[in-house]
């Protein structure tokens, strides 16, 4: 019996090593850039990193990223001046665009629509509206030189807080243990395709078994509606508080949103208070091709084309008014 355990153990070890090598050779697992917190407490990627982002099994989506000296995924360096026209796209992973080659990003697509502009993509996975305004505020000197700033906002996600604080949970991903685990591409790949979900679910199941069962409350539809309205009001208040804290230049700043998933209360507030917003819902709805990837809800190339088109049209209108 000992022989069986010893030999099985040895085989498992050798197979794991071989799989690690194969996963690296075929680049099945994604590279994860290192995060860091700069002197303004802005969370971003450590500058000047390169790598490949992989989604799904068998490399269904494979793209190259390049973190520039400002700590964002872009083929450009962000050097705004008074002489040129610059556009900043600020947002979360959708703007960050690890799902595309960095030289084929939304920013690049917008640049292709114009002859003489530079687009700076300040995208970082998980950035909400507080993160975005904190970034703009912290790098005020730079942003003051940028002609148009587009802030990506998803009403249900990005307005849950009214003040900026460092998100420690995200930075915990840079803990020594996590960094060590990320060194194994086999582990990274296995996690990304969901092989590690069953053990995680098992741990959760065991945890919930130990906890006392709370009686579940039945909520009426009216109550659900009331809670929804309450939440929407809270998010609107958060928006107001954030723009009061950091300021919001209505002339230069525009919000990028999807009206299909945005509260009518928020939309009417924006219109009433003359906030510029770019709604990409009509183009997405009209598109016959899918706008998202297979594995997650991030935009695919078609989606990114449409976003670039919507932003470009908005900018052209704005520029023509000037």
């Amino acid at each position, binding site marked *: *019996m000992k*022989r*069986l355990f010893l*030999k*099985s153990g040895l*085989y498992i070890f*050798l*197979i794991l090593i*071989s*799989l690690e090598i*194969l*996963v690296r050779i075929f680049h*099945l697992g994604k590279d994860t850039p290192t995060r860091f917190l700069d002197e303004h407490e802005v969370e971003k990627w450590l500058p000047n990193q390169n790598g490949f982002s992989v989604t799904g*099994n*068998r490399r*269904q989506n494979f793209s190259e990223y390049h973190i520039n000296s400002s700590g964002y995924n872009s083929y450009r360096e962000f050097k705004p001046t008074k002489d040129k026209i610059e556009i900043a796209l600020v947002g979360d992973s959708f703007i960050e665009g690890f799902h595309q080659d960095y030289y084929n990003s939304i920013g690049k697509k917008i640049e292709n629509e114009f002859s003489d502009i530079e687009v700076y993509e300040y995208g970082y996975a998980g950035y909400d509206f507080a993160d975005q305004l904190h970034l703009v505020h912290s790098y005020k000197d730079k942003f003051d030189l940028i002609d148009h700033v587009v802030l990506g906002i998803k009403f249900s996600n990005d307005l849950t807080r009214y003040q900026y604080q460092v998100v420690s949970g995200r930075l915990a991903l840079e803990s020594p243990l996590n960094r060590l685990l990320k060194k194994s591409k086999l582990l990274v*790949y*296995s996690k990304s*395709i*969901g*092989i590690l*979900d*069953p*053990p995680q679910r*098992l741990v959760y199941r065991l945890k919930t078994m130990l906890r006392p069962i709370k009686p579940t409350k039945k909520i009426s539809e009216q109550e659900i509606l009331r809670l929804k309205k309450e939440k929407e009001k809270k998010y609107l208040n958060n928006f107001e508080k954030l723009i009061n804290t950091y300021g919001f230049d209505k002339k230069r700043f525009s919000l990028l949103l999807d009206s299909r998933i945005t509260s009518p209360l928020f939309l009417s507030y924006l219109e009433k208070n003359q906030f510029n917003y770019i709604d990409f819902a009509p183009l997405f709805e009209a598109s016959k091709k899918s706008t998202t990837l*297979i594995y997650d809800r991030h935009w695919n190339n078609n989606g990114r084309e449409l976003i670039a088109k919507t932003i470009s049209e908005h900018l052209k209108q704005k520029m023509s008014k000037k």
Partner: protein
Amino acid sequence: MLFNSLDFFIFLPVVFILYWYIFRKKIQLQNLFILVASYLFYGLWDWRFLFLIIASTLVDFFVGQAIHKSTNHKTRKGWLWVSVLFNIGLLGFFKYYNFFINSWIDFTSLLGYEQQSSWTLQIILPVGISFYTFQTMSYSLDIYYKRLVPTKNLISFATFVSFFPQLVAGPIERASNLLSQITAKRKFNYIQCKEGLKLILWGLFKKVVIADAIAPIVDDIFANYSEYPASTLILGVSLFSFQVYGDFSGYSDIAIGTAKLFGIELMSNFKFPNFSRNVAEYWQRWHVSLSTWFRHYVYIPLGGSRVSKLKSVRNIIIIFLVSGFWHGANWTFIVWGAIHAILYIPVFLMGRNRIYMNTVVAENKWFPSGIEILQIFSTFLLVTFSRVFFRSQSITDAFEFLKQIFTNFSFESYEHPLGYRMIDYFILLGLFVLYEYRIRKDERAPFKFKSRIVRFIAYTLVILGMLLFYDDHIDRSFIYFQF
């Protein structure tokens, strides 16, 4: 508990260690432990249906003894009927009750009598009921035919009925093979365990990589067959052939491999049926434990092939119809069985039903001959054609599916419903067929390579395959659980 679940991968080593370390000294304790583990294995799915297994166990245990004790032929037959009626009764109620009621309603409505289906019930089909009822019945039948002496040990018999590796989807064992091993003292055997682990690995590959990876394509094509051209429908049913093979033979391999870890040898259930040279050979290689069950307990008692040709043909039709019906309470399965009877009868009448019994394709050769390739291809085609009925939800669907193939005869490239590259699957299946061809001589030794390095490479590639084709969103239950 599914073989391809994390629960099983925790359950198995725990049971294995306790079995060989704690309970190995006394065979009775070892059997009691396996029995408890088996009930736990089954009870985790639905503990209420454990009572059915226990009831079936008790009935056949006592019936077996009664048959053995009695010298009167009529009494023996009477007791046998108790076993058969009880087990068939269980099956009839849980599996076929609604089918009979609905068929009756359909029949009377054809005669002009409208009836409401107020007699149908919401019945859950207990997993494995078709398998363990047949297993317990075979015990009573073997005693009746004086092929077996009943055991006096209830624990051993209960372990035979509910042995967890083969409880829910076979192989359907005979007492002469399994019970005799359960009652004998078992010794830990390193080679046997090693072979078991290899079979488990190969079975998992067939399930996770072949069956599960293809499942979304097959589901999509059969669900939306009216929208697809013939080329896609042919692709769908061909892939279903591989899916059902990977699924069921994968399960059987894991079952046989798991049993080996406990010192038990189960019978082979699949012997590379995709390389069969005619339909008769196919049935000697596909779901062997069920085909031999019908052969021993239905076909031979009816006279088998020792009666007139006409009666033999009748017997063949009976076993194929019954075999079809065993698979599920749906006319589709009966038609599927009938198609196989129609395919089998000419082979039987030409006397070619036993010519490939003990040989494999390209015996002692590297490559099959042109004729063999043609035979394999045509057998695969015929069997695949029958699967349209096996897979369709209703007879109407099956005929519409076939009609669509013949009326919408065009070619269009097919796109995977989840957006995966289709070429990956074609390469995968091509390699799988080639590999199975390489190992075709021994279904119990999927990694039979002399070189240790080649063996190691094979293990690694098989696991890599699982990593490449694993999809967490796919329903991973086994197809044959519904039977």
